[in-house]
């Protein structure tokens, strides 16, 4: 390893772990000791990354308050140093961290709230895609409908929340007192997407969530209707399927349909 490479490794280790080896190669300034000057980099590292977490998780920050959020943020920074050149992606692992790390994993609403904010952030700058409109659907003859398959818009994503995090999110967004955190008997099935430039989400009924998931997997409409028939009134399955499909198209969550 070259001197230059070794010095960079020492400099970085000093920031990440508090090791002082590199101080032997740093000069005092005319007005200040080297420990303080090097400390500018040490302080900036943690504070910049925690600030990035605050920006990406505004409502989790509101929910926890400054002190608890920053403590959690520094724990995340320590556990998962950034490995991506773009700060945009630093917070991607936060939901998983909150789901697995003490003491946060004892409060599952935190991981769910972070997961919802992450999904909305991801929808905000997801790739562009064509939007399927109802006139495109009218081009298909009735006998083709059983074979129709659909492609979700790149911004659309599904997540299941085990807690009432969506109600907490809504209250915080409206500057209201959030409800007490609660674990749900059945997970809340959430669809997130971007309408024009605005990220949106809504909770789906169980059978609509099932139909979305399977449609996203490429299952054709005819089979989707057979699957819907196992959830509720079999005779109304096709109408319910068409209704869900209409809702997806008008809310800009689908990008293509194909009869192949």
């Amino acid at each position: 390893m070259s001197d230059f490479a070794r010095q960079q490794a020492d400099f970085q280790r000093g920031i990440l772990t508090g090791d002082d080896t590199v101080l032997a190669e740093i000069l005092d300034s005319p007005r200040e000791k080297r420990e303080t000057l090097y400390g500018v980099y040490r302080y900036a590292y943690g504070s910049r990354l925690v600030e990035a977490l605050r920006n990406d998780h505004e409502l989790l920050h509101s929910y926890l308050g400054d002190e608890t959020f920053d403590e959690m943020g520094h724990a995340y920074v320590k556990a998962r140093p950034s490995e991506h050149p773009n700060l945009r992606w630093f917070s991607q692992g936060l939901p998983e961290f909150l789901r697995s790390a003490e003491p946060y994993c004892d409060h599952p609403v935190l991981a769910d709230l972070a997961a919802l904010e992450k999904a909305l952030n991801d929808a905000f700058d997801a790739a562009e895609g064509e939007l399927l409109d109802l006139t495109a659907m009218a081009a298909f003859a009735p006998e083709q409908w059983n074979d129709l398959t659909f492609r979700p818009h790149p911004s659309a994503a599904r997540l299941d929340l085990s807690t009432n995090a969506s109600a907490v999110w809504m209250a915080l967004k409206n500057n209201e007192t959030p409800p007490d955190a609660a674990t749900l008997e059945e997970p809340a099935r959430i669809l997130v997407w971007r309408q024009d430039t605005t990220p949106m989400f809504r909770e789906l009924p169980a059978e609509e969530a099932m139909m979305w998931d399977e449609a996203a997997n490429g299952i054709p409409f005819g089979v989707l209707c057979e699957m819907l028939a196992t959830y509720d009134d079999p005779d109304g399955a096709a109408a319910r399927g068409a209704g869900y499909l209409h809702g997806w198209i008008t809310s800009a969550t689908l990008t293509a349909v194909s009869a192949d």
Partner: protein
Amino acid sequence: MNVASRLPNSPAAVERPLQSDKPPFLGFGLGLRAQHYDEILGGNPPIDWFEVISENYMLPGGQPLRVLDRICERYPVVMHGVSLSIASTAPPNFEYLQGLKDLARRVEPKWISDHLCWTGVHGKNLHDLLPIPYTSEALDHVVSRVQLVQDFLGRAIVLENVSTYVQFNNSEMTEWEFLAELSRRSGCWLLFDINNVYVSAFNHGYDPMTFLNGIPADRVVQFHMAGHSHMGTHIIDTHDHPVCEDVWDLYVAAIKRFGRVSTMIERDDNIPPLDELVLEVNRTREIAKKVLPPLGKQAG
């Protein structure tokens, strides 16, 4: 046939300063920030050009890129990155470089800039503009990296002096000697951050004019003007205040030495309304008008 004899020399072995036309003078600009999107697109602020943070638009899609497309239709744009990590001893991140190249294809920037610094090694990114020792070993390394990046991007890049808080005891030359040599040997252009010169000069106890006079005048294509936070014994480059009077004075000296250089106000935190920053942009313009002869009468 000896295969090795047919291979080109390694980049480190050959000095290949990229000969490129000096980028054009763009006038007096501002760093594009999301807080001002609506005002800029809804009005017609008297700003000649915008500098965009490259990483803010290295995204799959959505509103930031849509806004950027509209800005590019109306203004000259330059791309300014924070993650090139040109001085890192770690292998270059070619995925990042490809992302930068893809964005440049979309933006068609007047130039692409980043900083003379490193941001991490061993797979980590500290998201900071970290200092280097000014040694011949470091210079050789950075020259070869600049050449590689310029070859990859197919254009000369522009590198900025950063604010530094520490100096290394193994430095063999000054920062300005390092920058001058880097530019001469690699062909890169220089972004002269006047606030950073002021900050580093105070922190390390030298005269900012010595720095300014040590930079080759014909290599500077852009000025940055920004504010900082004074901690008494040292200054931190926070970009969260208006430009201070000492830095305005240094700007006058910089114009006298470097001539007509594209200049911009850089504000990254505690971001005020657009009007307030336009006043600072206007001040850069007015000072240049006073100090420089009118266009057409300038020597050379």
